[in-house]
């Protein structure tokens, strides 16, 4: 026999309880947004919009800013960079072994599409506390304008 028969035992009750909890919290078949990324995606990206700009926030901690390659072509933004998480340990420390390695190391590239209202010639990027902030202006004609209505 490959498994023990738990029917009518107390374990069956525990199993039932566990299944009920899993169902309650959507653990067996989680409901997620169709665009959501899996846990552990690196880097994660948020995009926001103000009346004049589209702002992209890329959470990319521990990267040498000179090694970030950021391009915008039409409305497609591509970010590629490399990070070596072992470099963060420092050279003064000799490390024999590890307990956990959860941080993503290596080369990465992500491509996202931005609204077509952006002006790819008007881009600013800065790196602050491990977040790459890309501010892209909107095309002049796309900016929300206040229209005066003449009253006759």
């Amino acid at each position, binding site marked *: 026999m490959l498994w023990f028969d738990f029917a009518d035992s107390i374990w069956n009750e525990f199993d039932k309880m566990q299944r009920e909890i899993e169902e309650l919290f959507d653990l067996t078949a989680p409901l997620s947004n169709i*665009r*959501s*990324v899996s846990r*552990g*995606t690196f880097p*994660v*990206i*948020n*995009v*926001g*919009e*103000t*009346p004049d700009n*589209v*702002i992209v*926030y890329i*959470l*990319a*901690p*521990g*990267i040498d800013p000179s090694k970030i390659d950021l391009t915008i072509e039409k409305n497609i933004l591509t970010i590629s960079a490399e990070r070596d*998480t072992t470099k*963060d*340990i*420092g050279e003064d*420390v*000799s*490390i*024999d*072994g*590890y*307990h*956990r*390695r*959860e*941080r*993503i190391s290596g080369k990465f590239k992500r491509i*996202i599409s931005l*609204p077509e209202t952006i002006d790819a010639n008007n881009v600013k990027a800065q*790196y*602050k*506390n*491990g*977040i790459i*902030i890309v501010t892209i202006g909107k095309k002049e004609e796309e900016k929300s304008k206040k229209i005066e209505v003449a009253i006759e």
Partner: protein
Amino acid sequence: MADERKDIAKREETNISKDIAKKTRALVPPVDIYEDNEKIVLLADMPGVSKDGLDIQIEKNILSIKGKIENIVPEDAKPIYVEFGGNEYVRSFTIGPEVDVNRIQANLNAGVLKLILPKAEEVKPKKIEVQVA
């Protein structure tokens, strides 16, 4: 009368769910933990946290790391595509008595926290000679 009672109960319910909605879930920062004879080194990815937003505490045998994400989003901005949400990172670990808590060093660089937890002198491993009779 019965209708009135129903109404009061409903209002309370909406208040509770609003309070929960206001609180965003804390993010769990991914960590690397290395160890050698001298120390344990912890690296945590906490993008968006500045030195002022960092809170590291040791109480008894629990090391807790908290980091508030600095608000960098302009007030008039609306989200159009969102992969992450939250405004703080929280993570805790139990540590053993071998860690010399008075000599812990913390360093934050480009969103990466580095904690060095040195081991106390008396607990560093000693080589034991095995006598062969």
